[in-house]
């Protein structure tokens, strides 16, 4: 009798859990679409390029990993970097207040924007790729970039691309990458899978290279270059020309916001703000 009762209890619990799951699933969708409609009907179009919805009225909420200096970083409790100042400039062009969410994992940003309700845009040095375009929309490109590989100085890894790929393909070599980045993509395409280890943070990767735990770190060149000035025992052993471009991530349900940001980007390009930002953070003069 006792046993039957416990089986029944377990069954009841499972049913309840499943019911919760289904309810939560629906619940997530309904308010989102509800607010969408409400926003569309009540909020007048703020720009000529059409209307868009925001999580909070009057605020452009940005998601970023803030762990990608000099593009994004989190210093003294404040978001800093090229991307951050760009987001602020875009927000001010759109007459909005820019607000950054606390730092999050890079590979969590696209799912977050996709699901909506937490942030309006993702601006975290996202390279525009066709694969990512399936999940979200990109704004126009705002910066060109390439990949780079950092290794420990005098670690015996050098030469041209083919030689370095061969050295990094040897058994037992560990190549650190940030999870979900184009650096990980490159490593998995060019190196044996067992050698590639994805991590959450850039600091984790570069510290590992510096201490000899990992043999190399593949990431965007501006970041690799910057990290090698901080970890002076590391160096950039290879610059990989990929010609990738950074864009800002916007939900596919919010095309109005994408075009509004594109307008703002064009204005920033025109009035010289973009050139000033590039000079400030990368010393690039065009």
């Amino acid at each position, binding site marked *: 009798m006792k046993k039957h009762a416990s089986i029944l209890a377990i069954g009841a619990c499972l049913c309840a859990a499943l019911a919760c*799951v*289904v309810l*939560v*699933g629906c619940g*997530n*969708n309904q308010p989102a679409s509800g607010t969408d409609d409400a926003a569309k009907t009540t909020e007048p179009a703020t720009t000529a390029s059409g209307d868009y919805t925001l999580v909070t009225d009057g605020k452009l909420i940005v998601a970023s990993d803030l762990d990608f200096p000099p593009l994004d970083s989190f210093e003294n409790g404040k978001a800093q970097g090229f991307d951050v100042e760009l987001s602020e400039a875009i927000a001010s062009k759109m007459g909005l207040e820019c607000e950054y969410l606390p730092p999050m994992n890079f*590979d969590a940003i*696209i*799912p977050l924007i996709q*699901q909506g309700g937490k942030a309006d845009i993702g601006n975290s040095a996202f390279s525009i*790729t*066709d*694969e990512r375009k399936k*999940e979200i929309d990109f704004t126009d490109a705002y910066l*060109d970039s*390439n990949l780079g590989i950092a290794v420990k100085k005098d670690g015996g890894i050098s030469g041209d*691309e083919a030689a370095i790929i061969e050295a990094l393909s040897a058994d037992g070599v*560990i190549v*650190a990458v940030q*999870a*979900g980045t184009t650096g*990980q*993509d490159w490593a*998995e*395409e*060019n190196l*044996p*899978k*067992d050698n590639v*280890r*994805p*991590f*959450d943070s850039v600091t*984790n990767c570069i*510290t*590992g290279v510096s*201490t*000899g*735990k*990992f043999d190399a770190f593949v990431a965007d*060149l501006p970041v690799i270059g910057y990290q090698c000035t901080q970890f002076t025992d590391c160096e950039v052993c290879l*610059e990989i*020309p*990929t*010609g*990738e*471009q950074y864009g800002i991530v916007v939900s596919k349900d919010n095309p109005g916001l994408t075009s509004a940001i594109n307008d703002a980007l064009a204005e920033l390009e025109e009035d010289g703000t973009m050139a000033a930002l590039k000079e400030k953070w990368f010393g690039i003069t065009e």
Partner: protein
Amino acid sequence: MGHTDRRRQRGLLVTLCAVVCAFVMLAPSTAWGLTTSKATARPNEEGGSSVIGGLPTRLTWEGTVDDGEEVTAVTLRLPEGGSFDGASTKVTVLQGLTRSELATEVAPEGPQLKVTFVDPATQGLLLRLEVEGMKFPAKGGDVVVEGTYVNQDGEKPLAASKPIATIANTPLQSLLASLDANPVVKAWNSSQFLGMFFKPQLLVTAFATLVPGWFLCLVIVLVAYPIAILLGLVFALMKISRHRVLRAIAIVYINILRGTPLFLQIYIMFFGLPMMNINIDNNVLGVIVIAINASAYLAEIFRAGIESIPPGQYEAAASLGMGHMMTMLNIILPQTVRRVMPTVTSDFITSYKDTSLLSSVGVMELMMFAKNLTSVSGNMTPYVAAAIFYLIVTLPLIKVVTTVEKRMAKSERGGGARPKVKAKDVAAAEAEQDDIALGGVVDAQ
């Protein structure tokens, strides 16, 4: 003799060099006008590292325009069975690391992909074609990408790329394809929550690929735990020792390890030790960190267990003429073991789960595999699969703890199992034990 030989060799070398130089000088007429530098494909095996034919993947082809050439079109060709149909192509033109904007037209057609440059690509430019959604021949094997290019002198063949290793479809991938096509699975995945956390395709992939990580977790905790038990016992005895110094050491050790997050201890060990030039294998280091961390908790559990034995036992042992050591080994510790068993099992469960933190420093355990799969798929399902792997071990252990605790509670109340119970059938025994337990409670009251 040796000298003349060497001279002859030197002479040969010189002529060889001369011949090679002559070829290089003549090169412009014979060399490729567009040099294929690279062709690679992204692995498209779910959770694996192979490139599978017949399934969409991405081909990256790179070529450099040679001196004095102007390339107006590039055509890539796959072997029979390969297809560019429905693929989207990103053309990137680079001068060094700087992008050059060149207008292009892309026309995929069956096994051919033609990229036309509106303005010709000039010397020194790197042409990079990323073709997303193309398919290699379904039969697998080494695939060589060939093709032609058009320069100012007309159409010429491209140098063949290095072979790209591809494989035919695996049973697992066929199963995934059938799941993809299944309408029930489609309906299931259309729910945002179910699709994000319980996607059937990814559950299958994860179960097939997470096993090595799961084994490593088990190995780490099974090796670490006996060490932790020994260390824990030593520190427990030190903490109740009469020597002040031993007590102090034990207190510092236990408090620091119990008072700081394991995550921090892992970071310090993994990144700190190499800085002091101590290099230990990652997996071994994982065992050490887990063992040391668990030993601090176990020391406290053992100390509490030892102190819970009534002082009367020591007095009785002393009255029989037993020394301190003998009392400990023969009287106190055996009773302690019985008392701490459930708590130690709980702590074992904790340690087993704690191995997940090792993923943050690159130990290829369960969470690392799950993370790998998640970062590739952008889906949380691999974590759910990992959770199931943890539960396979923890649920039976939790059951053991509960059972043992119940039995002990009964025996503490004086209603423990008696020899005669064994002879009877289980149901009767249970009923009787309940009665006895009740009786015990009544007695106690």
